[in-house]
C-alpha cells in the first residue's frame, strides 16, 4: 500500500437530511477529510444497489449512504427500504469479499453536521487501514491472463464493458 493512499469515498446523501447536514457542516466550518464525493439523491430510498456496485467497480474504496433517521424520512419510509436492501447487500458484499467497513449506511439528520464530519473522518481512517480496493486495477490484473491473446478487430470496447452499456449506446 502506498504511503500516500487516500481512500475515495462515494457518498449517496438524501436531499432532506444528510445532504442538508453536510451543508450544515459547511456552514459551521466543520473541517473534515476531503475524501468523500457526495452525490445528491432525493431520498435514501433512491439508492439502487447497482449504484453501490458501480461505484466499487469504478474505483471507490468505500461507499457511504446517508439517510434520515428511522421515522424521520421526508418521504415517510424510503429509509426503511434502503435499510432492507442494505442488510442483504451487505451480506452479499461479504460473500463477494468486499470488507464490511467499505460500505456504510448512516442515519444523519439535517441538524447533525458534526456527524457528517465524524462519519467521514472515521470512514477515511478505516479505509486507510484496509488499503485500496481498486477494483479497476484488479480487473486489469485479472485480465492480464487474457490480454496476451489477440483481440478482435473492433477492440473499441474494453473487455469488461458490460453489453448493457453498449446496448444503451446503440439505442441512444
Amino acid at each position, binding site marked *: 500500500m502506498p504511503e500516500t493512499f487516500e481512500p475515495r469515498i462515494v457518498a449517496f446523501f438524501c436531499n432532506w437530511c444528510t445532504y442538508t447536514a453536510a451543508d450544515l457542516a459547511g456552514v459551521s466550518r466543520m473541517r473534515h477529510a476531503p475524501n468523500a464525493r457526495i452525490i445528491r439523491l432525493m431520498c435514501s430510498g433512491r439508492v*439502487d444497489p447497482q449504484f453501490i456496485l458501480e461505484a466499487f467497480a469504478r474505483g471507490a474504496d468505500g461507499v457511504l449512504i446517508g439517510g434520515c433517521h428511522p421515522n424521520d424520512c421526508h418521504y415517510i419510509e424510503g429509509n426503511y427500504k434502503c435499510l432492507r436492501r442494505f442488510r442483504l447487500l451487505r451480506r452479499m458484499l461479504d460473500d463477494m469479499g468486499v470488507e464490511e467497513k467499505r460500505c456504510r449506511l448512516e442515519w444523519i439528520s439535517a441538524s447533525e453536521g458534526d456527524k457528517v464530519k465524524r462519519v467521514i473522518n472515521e470512514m477515511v481512517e478505516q479505509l486507510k487501514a484496509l488499503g485500496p480496493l481498486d477494483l479497476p486495477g484488479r480487473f486489469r490484473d485479472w485480465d492480464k491472463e487474457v490480454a496476451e491473446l489477440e483481440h478482435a478487430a473492433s477492440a473499441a470496447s474494453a473487455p469488461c464493458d458490460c453489453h448493457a452499456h453498449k446496448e444503451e449506446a446503440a439505442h441512444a
Partner: protein
Amino acid sequence: MDNGDGKVRIGFYVCHCGTNIAGTVDVASVAKYAAGLPGVAVSRDYKYMCSDPGQDLIGEDIREHGLNRIVVAACSPCLHEATFRTATARAGLNPFFCHLVNIREHASWVHSDRAAATAKVYDLIRAACGRVRHHKALERKRVNVRPEVLVVGGGIAGIQAALTVAESGKKVYLVEREPTIGGHMAMFDKTFPTLDCAACILTPKMSQVKAHPNITLWTYSEVAAVEGFVGNFKVKVRRKPRYVNEEACVGCMECVDACIYKEPKFEDEFNQRLGKRKPVYMSFPQATPKVVQIDPETCLHFKTGKCKQPCIASCSRNAFDFNQEERFEDIDVGAIIVATGFKPFDPARSPKYGYGHFPNVYTSLEVERLVNSAGPTGGEVVMRDGRKPKSVGIVHCVGSRNLQTNRWCSKVCCMYSLKLAHLIKEHTHAEVYNFYIDMRTPGKGYEEFYNQLLEEGVHFIRGKVAEVTDWAMTPEEEGKLVMRVEDTLAGFVRRIPVDMVVLAVGLEPQADAQGVRRMFNISCSSEGFFLERHPKLAPVDTATDGVYLAGACQGPKDIPDSVAQAGAAAAQAMALIDKGYIEMEPNAAFIDSEECSGCKSCIPLCPYTAISFDEVTVKATINEALCKGCGTCVAACPSGSIKQNLFEDVEIFSEIEEVLANA
C-alpha cells in the same frame, strides 16, 4: 435548444464567492480544467456568480455560444439552484439543463488543504459535466393551492398569524390543545421592558380571534393526522370532549357556583397549581372561548356516577352534555403554520436548586401568576407559608447554558428576570438579588430597562448559584434559604440568605415536539426546536413546502419576536395562497408502459399511493400529481422500467463514473 446538431455544449462557471470558495479552492485552475472536459464550450471563473452580472454572464454565453447545458460550481443547490435555473431560463434555455455543483458547503468550507480541496472540486465538476449531458428539457407541473390556512397553536404567535391571514380575507382554522387560547402570554402579568399589562394587550386579540368571521377556532383540540402536500393538505383534527356544548355556553359561571364541591378543591393547572379550581371551571376569566368545561378526572359524576349534577340544573342554556365524545373534523387547507410554542424547563432536573424540596423555591412562571392580580393570590406576592418575602433571590439560566441540561441560551430569561425583580420589589419592597452568568439584554429598550433596575436598587451578583440550602451556618441564616454562589466579580464565595428563590427557567421544545414534527414532516435542530429552512434567508419556512413556523416552537423567542415571526409566517402562507398555484419540481417518476412487465413490485412501495395497477394494460402506472419524487420505486424496479426525471439512472451512473474517473 440543440443548435440542430445535437451536440452538447456546456457552459461551465466557477464562483469565487468572494474568498469563500477562492480562498481554499484554486478557481482559476478549476476553470482551466473544466475547459478541457468533453463538451465544455465555455469555462469561466467569476467573483460572485449569483450577482446580477454573474447571472448575466450565463445568459450572454448561452446566446453567443449556443450553449445547451449550464454547470455552475458554487454553493449548495439548496441555496442557489433556483437562481441559476432562472438565469438559464431567462436566456431561453430550459432551466433543467442547468446543474449546480456544491463546492462551497461541501468543499471550500470544510477543507483546509488547497490541493486536496481543488482535486475534490475537479472530481465534482467532472461528475456534473457528465451528468448534464443526459439532462432533458422538463416542465414544472402546476398544482392548485387551496385558500384555507391551518394555524396550530393559539399562543401569541398563533393568534397573530391567524389574525393576519384572516384579515387578508382567507379562511383560517386555529387549533389549540388547551381549553383556551392565549398560551404562555396569558399567564404573564406585565411584559418587558415597557411593563404594559399582558392581558391588556393580549385579550383584545383573543376576542378578535373568537369574533373573526374568517377564523374557525377549535380549542381543546389537536391535529391528529396530516396528509397531502403543499396547497392540498388533508388534516384530521381531534376535538376532545369538554362535556359542554360550546355553542350553548356563554361562560356565565353559574354552574361553577352550583357545583357539588362548594370550595375549589383541585389543583389549577393554569395557575401553575398554586391555586384551586372545581371540576367544572374556566381557565381564567378572559378565557377564549368563554366556555366552561368539565374535568372528568375530578368530576364526581364521572368518578362515581352519584353526583346530583347541580351544574346541569343551574344552566339555563342547557349547555351540559355528559355524553359528549371525542370527535374528528376533516379539513382541507393549502398552508399550515405551526406555532406550538415551548415548554418551560422543569427545575426538578437540577436538584441543587431545591425545587420541589423547599416550598419557597418557585419557578418564574409561578411567580408570574403570583404577581398577577388575576392570579391565585390576587396579585399578592405571598409564599406558600403565607408570609411576604423580605428577600428574594432570582437564579438566572436555570436549564439554560449548561452542559447537564440544555446548552442553549433561552434568550428571554434575563429580561423576564429583570421584570420579575421589578415587580417583586414593587409588590413587597423586598431585597431582590439576581444571580446571573452574563446579562443579555439586546433589544429595543432592554438595556435601558436593565439600567433602570440597577437604579432601583436590585442587587446583581455575577456567578452561578452552586446550591440552595436550608442549612444555616449563622443565626441570621436560620429559617432562610441560603444561596451559595461564587461572586466572580468580587472573587469570593458568598452565602446569601433569602426568604424566596425564583428560578428563571429556560425554554425547551414541547414534550411532544418529535411527534408533532413527524406529523407535519418537518425537521428539528439538534436541541429539538423545529428547524427552519434557512437560518437567515428562510427563517419561517420549513423543509416541507407549505408548512411554516411561528414563535418559540422554532427556538426561544420573546413576544415581539414571536409576533414578528408570526407575521412573516402569515405573509408566506398568503403569498402561497394568493398565487393560487405552485409549480412542482419536475422530478416525478414515470413508467414506460412498453417496458413494464406488470410485476407489481413497485406498487406497495409508494407511500403516496401514486402507483396503481392498470387492469386493462396489466401494467403499473404512476399518477404524476401524487408522486413526490423520492425515487424509491425507481431503485426497486427490477427491470429498470421506472425512471425519475432529474435523477435518471443514466444521470446518476454518469456521476458515479465521472467522479471516480481520475484514477
